[in-house]
């Protein structure tokens, strides 16, 4: 699975990236974390605010920095849905 952090490189985007790393490591998931900084690529996800989080191309939230606990919940939910 691919966890995608969308953001052109502002402070909030880095904060979200860190929270995602913490969450993925804590859950010990075989996930690839991808940072998408190109604005045209970001717009393909059809978000209206950054930073945003997507899993396998599916946007989970946009325009805020979620805590690593919330990201853990989102990841768990996604894994449960897929399996």
């Amino acid at each position, binding site marked *: 699975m691919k966890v995608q952090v969308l*953001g*052109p*490189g*502002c*402070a*909030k*985007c880095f904060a979200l990236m860190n929270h995602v790393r913490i969450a993925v490591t804590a859950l010990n998931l075989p996930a690839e974390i991808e940072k998408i900084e190109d*604005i*045209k690529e*970001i*717009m*393909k996800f*059809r*978000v*209206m*605010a*950054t930073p*945003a989080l997507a899993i396998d191309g599916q*946007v*989970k*939230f*946009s*325009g*805020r920095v979620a805590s690593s606990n919330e990201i853990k919940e989102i990841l768990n939910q996604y894994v449960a849905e897929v399996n």
Partner: protein
Amino acid sequence: MATIRLSLSSFYKSINEPFFIPSWIKAGLTAIIWYIIYKNLAVIANWVTYDLLGFSLNSHIGSSIEFFIFEVPKVLMLLVVVVYGVGVIRTFFTPERTRTFLAGKKEVIGNILAAMLGIVTPFCSCSAVPLFIGFIKSGVPIGVTFSFLIAAPMINEIAVVLLFGMFGIKITAIYVLTGLLIAIFTGWIIGRLHMEKYLEDWVNEVEAPLENNINVSISWQERLQAGHDAVQDIVKKVWLYIVLGIAVGAGIHGYIPTGMMAGILGKNSWWSVLLAVLVGVPMYSNAAGIIPIAQALLEKGASLGSVLAFMMSVIGLSLPELIILRNVLKMPLVLTFVGVLTVGIIIVGYLFNLIF
């Protein structure tokens, strides 16, 4: 000593028992203590400077230090309260909801609503492109979109706190109202110029952004948490600028003679507003650093119009945001945007120099 320590520790223990003091009483007590300290800051600053530190009255250094000791805690205390409040209010507004509300609104009404929503909708200049595309793609007219993009950074909670803390309620109201007027008029003019063809070509091919947070229902606890997070985030980011800005302001306050600025930025020199804007436009600082300096300039004889124009051009026009917007706007539109906004600020500056 031992008995005192014992009774103190049991006292603190009793405050921390959650069932003993409910959280709303704690919040109330915090508010009362906040208010008492806030109301007595001038007395405290005076006492610390002249009695505790022993600076002599009427000395340059004493005057500077008293100013600094008074202003720094005052502005920081105001900032915490306002940022908390705005953080909570902003959980009710999202860019997506604002867009849906503005879509299909006619010009003029649309410009007015967009400028006002620019104040309360969460906005970060790094998000300017997705927001811009989201607006345009769902039928918000280009001029209305610009009204939003001008008001959002110019009238922000940090600017309002610093204006209120350093200048008082009257000048804060003037800044907010003229800021709104400039956003409304500038956006309206850009709309009248029909510059849709100066959008970058790739914008036409992008699909409209979706409402991505539709299933999120926010509890009150989360709204309050958002206020708390906003305080942590913003205070951490701007406290140093505030301290530095007030330190420079304190230096000007204590050392530069009253009236010295009258020659350079006073109302009788015709070039003062132009000079203020020319210096202000390329300068990029957040409101936190610039407003304390502007206040000191006003105090030393600079005219209100020049100071207002200076603050607006520093806060409202920033190079990083223009570079980000260049991704979606062709050069003629970027230049029109800067040009019309600059002219608007200059007009406001001269207007205030005429009135006051």
